[in-house]
């Protein structure tokens, strides 16, 4: 290579490096942060709601660029764990699903929104009580605002119930009567009572949790697996399996959807949003055949939900903008209603729950005014404290239930083994 060709190349490289460095030198870090787009990290369906809001938001804030980064549900939460742990590539607003919020709020990675700079405490009365209390960290500070919740209810096939000569009250009077009704349903219609006994065990354990305590751990972080509510849940689950009343299919799997389509599952316990999922893609052909009721024994709980938080180490220059955006995502009555209509995102905002939309019949549920029922449930859901090992505990209990159901392990032994595993890990 001749020097005549090498020199211009060197100059070109030098100019490029020089330009990059001089560019960086003339723009201050603060100005760079302000110029960077406001970023919202979200997962499917929540991302659609956030994108819809940003369309109007950018018209009111033309000086601010904003965008939504969307990832699949698990990938999103894994990415947020990584971003918070390294403080790198942090978004300005993070959408968190309820089960992850518990874990994230136990660390110090989320901004304290109760602090005077944000003043989230003034909105405490705007949301259903359990939703805002779930967003508190161990020090009692609010670290996220709730957007949508999933008031739990019992979905049941009214046609199958009629064929079996049963009434709604036969399903909801108590968990024992629910199982008895399942025996009649199976005998007279051939339909299974429930997809899997795990769902039944979960809800009985949750329903029996003392107010303010965790599902698996008490306030002193001690596992409570050998308590009577676990014994009852395991015994009922075992009975249901022995009677062949559960289809042994996992929610969202192909077999589960197929059974719903073919009317082989008579009931389903889930959040109110399940009506939309079934109507839109899981089992649209069953429209009009389903109804909802409160869960047996007046059990109230939430199946999922979405929160918005600000990472503690995100760009300080954009935190107030992020806070404004979160307020619009969670406190705007009309937007909450729009999201409920379009995405079945049941609003946590009390003002939105007073809209006439809640008094309208739901066609998929045979014209039942189900939103009133979900609203009633939402206001009665107790707060369940999250523990760092919540997810692990959930799986340990499921594994021991499998041992009871598959290998005939005695229930007291299974619960003691689960307790021992959780004691081993409770303080990690």
């Amino acid at each position, binding site marked *: 290579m001749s020097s005549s060709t090498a020199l211009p190349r*060197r100059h070109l490289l030098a100019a490029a490096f020089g330009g990059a460095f001089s560019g960086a030198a003339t723009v201050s870090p603060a100005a760079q942060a302000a110029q960077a787009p406001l970023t919202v990290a979200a997962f499917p369906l929540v991302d659609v709601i956030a994108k819809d809001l940003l369309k109007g938001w950018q018209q009111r804030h033309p000086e601010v660029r904003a965008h939504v980064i969307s990832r699949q549900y*698990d990938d999103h939460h*894994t990415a*947020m*764990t*990584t971003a*918070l*742990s*390294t*403080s790198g590539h942090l978004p300005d607003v993070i959408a968190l699903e309820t089960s992850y919020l518990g*874990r*994230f709020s*136990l*660390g*110090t*990675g*989320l901004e304290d929104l109760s602090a005077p700079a944000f003043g989230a405490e003034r909105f405490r009365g705007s949301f259903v009580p359990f939703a805002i209390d779930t967003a508190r960290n161990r020090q009692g500070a609010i670290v996220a605002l709730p957007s949508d919740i999933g008031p739990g209810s019992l979905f049941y096939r009214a046609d199958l119930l009629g064929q079996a000569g049963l009434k709604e009250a036969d399903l909801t009077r108590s968990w024992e009567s629910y199982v008895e009704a399942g025996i009649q349903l199976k005998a007279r219609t051939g339909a299974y009572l429930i997809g*899997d006994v795990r769902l039944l065990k979960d809800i009985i354990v949750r329903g029996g949790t003392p107010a303010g305590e965790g599902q698996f751990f008490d306030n002193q972080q001690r596992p409570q697996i050998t308590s009577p509510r676990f014994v009852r849940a395991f015994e009922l689950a075992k009975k249901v399996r022995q009677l062949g009343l559960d289809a*042994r*299919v*996992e929610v969202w*799997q*192909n*077999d589960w959807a*197929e*059974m719903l389509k073919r009317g082989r599952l008579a009931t389903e316990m889930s959040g109110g949003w399940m009506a939309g999922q079934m109507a839109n893609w899981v089992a649209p052909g069953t429209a009009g055949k389903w109804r909802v009721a409160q869960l047996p024994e007046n059990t109230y709980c939430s199946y999922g939900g979405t929160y918005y938080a600000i990472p*503690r*180490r995100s760009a300080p220059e954009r935190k107030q903008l992020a806070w404004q955006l979160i307020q619009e995502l969670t406190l705007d009555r009309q937007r909450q209603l729009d999201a409920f209509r379009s995405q079945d995102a049941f609003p946590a905002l009390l003002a939105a729950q007073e809209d006439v939309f809640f008094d309208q019949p739901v066609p998929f549920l045979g014209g039942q005014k189900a939103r009133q029922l979900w609203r009633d449930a939402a206001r009665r859901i107790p707060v369940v404290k999250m523990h*760092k*090992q919540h*997810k*692990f505990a959930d*799986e340990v209990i499921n*594994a021991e239930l*499998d*041992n009871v159901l*598959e290998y005939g392990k005695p229930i007291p032994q299974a619960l003691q083994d689960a307790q021992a*595993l959780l004691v*081993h*890990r409770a303080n*990690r």
Partner: protein
Amino acid sequence: MNFRIPAAWAPYILVSPFLILFAVFGLFPLLFSLWLAFQSWEPTSGLDAMKFVGLDNFVFALTDGWFWKSLRNTLWLAVASGVPQHLVALPLAVFLHQGFGRWRGLFSGAYFLPYITSTVAIAMLFGSLFSTDYGLVNQALHAMFGTENINWMRSPEAIKPAVAIVVFWRYVGFNLVLYLAALQTIPRDLYQAATLDGAGPWQQFLRITLPGLKPMILFGVTLSVIGGLQLFEEPFILTNGKGGADQAAMTVGMYLYRLAFDFSDFGGASALAWIMFGVIAALTWLTNKAFADRRVQP
């Protein structure tokens, strides 16, 4: 200014892209994981939330019931999917080598196809095949043997064989290609000489083919040992990342991932990773010892 790179620097500059990439993506994660193995860390609180805990994470990992359960699962799956891979691939390679002539490439390509197919697509396909009520596997078993439907994904006894079948199906073609390549290096003269001496096909297989393939068998078995102990993708996707009923298909690779990202215990997960490194190194060494040439040198 005339900028010139001294000639002595040139080799270092030329290898620097590799060294830099290796340092960033290879060495740093290794050392960071070693560092993490001695720390207690709530990851969402940031890097400064780490606390040195000495050997606590190793003690925790070695006394954790789920580690031993996942190790037993891993060994079961490694044997149940690994051994048949070689028992099928080796004779199949000999058969293709001897009997298919120029069509050999086509058939070996067909067997190799699962290896280069997306794991997600494979898992989705097998998820449908293993469906309890609507899957082809149960339909076929019922038609042939009149068996009851098996709940492959929700029964602890059934899920392990289901995963092993997928792993076997996926990697048998890879081993087949290895053995086909090795077969082509065995001189034909040996077979001709053996034929002249009156050796039959079975004797030729035992006395010429198998010894000739020994280095490749060692290579293939070593890869299977390492791959089997690191098994992650197939059970992870088939069981939705949970490990199935009673975690019967949760391998150590899955457990250490879940320990970090599902249960927020990066310290414990890192300790587990280093323990597994020791286990894999020991088993690889044992494999090499098992295949060592035992003939005494004169």
